[in-house]
């Protein structure tokens, strides 16, 4: 239980670090560490497939995308730095939220978890994905095609002579 809660706390700390960091590159790396923590939590819950997806896609691919984009816009980051005061106020705002939420949220969440209806459980993730939720896979393919189309339309090929 301590390991489990520690992972959640680490995810929150890395997220706050990502928000407060001055450099966008460090923010992207801290975001990857949040993803690693989330992936370990998935493993701890007994969800290895989701954990491997999270680790490879969110901690890997998305970090590479962020670092690529940040390296393209680095000159702007150095020329027009943002006002840091609002970011340094995050621990204070977070502490106020945490203390206020401590009085209300745990009771509400206890009530909420008592409403849970226990499912059948078991089953196989392969059967679930390929047989029962096949429309989801079609939706994912359509989503990926939409992403490719967006990138293609944002960066059109220039016509010759222009």
């Amino acid at each position, binding site marked *: 239980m301590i390991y489990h809660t520690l992972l959640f706390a680490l995810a929150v700390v890395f*997220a706050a670090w990502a*928000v407060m960091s001055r450099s966008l590159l460090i923010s992207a790396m801290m975001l990857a560490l949040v993803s690693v923590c989330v992936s370990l939590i998935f493993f701890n819950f007994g969800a290895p497939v989701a954990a491997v997806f999270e680790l490879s896609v*969110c901690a890997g691919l998305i970090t590479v995308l962020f670092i690529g984009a940040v390296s393209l816009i680095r000159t702007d980051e150095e020329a027009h730095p943002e006002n840091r005061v*609002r970011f340094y106020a995050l621990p204070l705002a977070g502490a106020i939220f945490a203390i206020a939420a401590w009085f209300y949220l745990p009771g509400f969440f206890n009530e909420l978890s008592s409403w849970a209806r226990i*499912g059948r*459980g078991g089953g196989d993730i392969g059967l679930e994905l390929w047989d029962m939720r096949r429309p989801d896979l079609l939706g994912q393919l359509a989503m990926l095609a939409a992403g490719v189309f967006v990138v293609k339309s944002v*960066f059109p090929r220039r016509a010759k002579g222009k």
Partner: protein
Amino acid sequence: MNIFSLDWYLIALLVFTGFYCMLASRSIVRQLIGLEIISKGAMLTVISAGALTNNLVFAQALIITMIVIEVVVVAAGLALLVKNFRINGSTDIWKLNSLKG
């Protein structure tokens, strides 16, 4: 307090951090980072609800779908960022309106 209540309390802190990032910053990269943090909170909520109701298989299938959608949203957002930077030389989110056709 049971373990799920504590988990959800920490998830609430995570989501608050993401919202704060989106509210405090005008940079498109930081908006996307805030969005990512909020979506991590949503994923953790789904998986812990799956563990609570003994439905982890459904939860995993849903999370795989969420991850795919997240990647596409981030890729589209970063593409817009780079395009905006090439046109305006800025990553300010308020300058995105110059991209309209």
